[in-house]
């Protein structure tokens, strides 16, 4: 019998959450929008998408989702892309964003500059014995400025870590949901365990 694939929630307050759901659908993973606190009970893993971290911070507070989110990210597998990475970090250079401290990294919001500095960079990613070339899409991306002990860097772009993991938390500064590749979604939904070390 095939292993059952966990239900993956996508935080659906603001941003490109539909893009993540489309990719999950394309690899036969059940994706669910998480729009209220009770929705966390229906999912086993969570993706926090790209968008604006200030807006997500505001809405998480207004819709009283902060406690449930904090408890979810303390134990269940969770993956943050771009704005999601900022929310999961332990520190950010912007007081209007409330970080969860789920992964021991510090980031600079829009650390590479404004939209004219957004870019696509080719890379080769090795994960679980698979090697795949993929385009890394950086959009007003956060820049990792400190990597704590116990955090593993899975991919660098130039000198900067852009894909990192610690325990149950995976973060990427780029947007895998905007490229054709489902490699990372497949990895997160099917392989990524809550004990990454």
């Amino acid at each position, binding site marked *: 019998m095939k292993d059952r694939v966990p239900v993956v929630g996508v935080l*659906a*307050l*603001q*941003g*490109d*959450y*539909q*893009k993540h759901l489309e990719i999950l659908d394309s690899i036969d993973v059940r994706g669910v929008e998480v*729009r209220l606190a009770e929705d966390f009970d229906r999912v086993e893993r969570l993706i926090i998408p*790209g*968008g*604006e971290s*200030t*807006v997500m911070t*505001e*809405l998480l507070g*207004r*819709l009283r989702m902060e406690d449930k989110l904090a408890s979810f990210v303390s134990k269940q597998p969770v993956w943050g892309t*771009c*704005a999601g990475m900022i929310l999961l970090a332990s520190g950010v250079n*912007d007081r*209007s964003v409330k970080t969860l401290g789920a992964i021991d990294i510090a980031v600079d*919001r*829009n650390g590479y*500059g*404004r*939209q*004219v500095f*957004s*870019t*696509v960079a080719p890379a080769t990613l090795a994960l679980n014995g698979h090697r795949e070339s993929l*385009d890394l*899409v*950086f*959009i*007003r991306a956060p820049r990792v400025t400190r990597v704590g002990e116990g955090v593993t860097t899975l991919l660098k772009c130039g000198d900067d870590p852009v894909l990192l993991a610690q325990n149950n938390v995976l973060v990427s500064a780029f*947007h895998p949901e*905007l*490229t054709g590749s489902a490699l990372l979604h497949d990895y997160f939904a099917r392989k990524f365990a809550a004990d990454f070390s």
Partner: protein
Amino acid sequence: MDNKKDLMTVNVGLAEMLRNGVIMDVTNAEQAKIAEDAGAVAVMALERVPSDIRAGGGVARMADPAVIEKIKSTVTIPVMAKCRIGHFAEAQLLEAMEVDFIDESEVLTPADYENHVDKFQFKVPFVCGCRNLSEALRRIAEGAAMIRTKGEAGTGDVSEAVRHLRLINKQIKELTVLRKDELSSRAKELAVPLDLVMKVAELGKLPVPNFAAGGIATPADASLCMQLGAESVFVGSGIFKSETPEKMAKAIVTAVARFDHPKDLVEISRGLGASMKGISVANIGEEELLHTR
């Protein structure tokens, strides 16, 4: 990064990041801060909000660079700014100032009644207004990374935005059921490239995000546009011409996140004070309409 395909990826990508959010018109740094604190996903810098342009008359142009720079240094969310239709020099100034998005907007007085800006000459993404599928696809063919309805700006009357959203969606649906050999003549009728028409027929949607704009003044207006398929909303005069801009700004942001939950929208809409007074589109003379530009 000079590759055109990669540039389109990051520019349409930024438009994707702004989905399910509210972009607010602001005329100074104080308003920009209020917008950001309320949860705006981006701000649009302009000299006067559309209702003041409508009331004041005269030629409406790109905002003063000093104002745009002050706004840029005040907020951390993306900053957009408007240039006149066809005014590629204003667009060049905005790009030199490194704004995050340029709105080639009918709200300002057009600089060219024949041609739009060739948006492929720019690194910065463009958003353009449209009333129907033909306009939307022509703007995309010129390089727009985001489309918005024109609506009728500065009125607080949502009816034109609704008309434009419904029409574009109907025209897209029609494409999806046409035979391949019929798409060619349809492309000719729409006066747009065939490959773009075939792409829309295949996707069942535009290849770039489609947002609503023009006349949105209440949380319920935002909900209406989202339910009609808009992927985000622009609010112009609706916020800073309301009685309590802070409250209205917050309410419209929450309304977009809860757009399909009427009970939540009741709470969100309660006690906001007066919305902008506005003017019915039916009472505006043909020559004063902005959406026909």
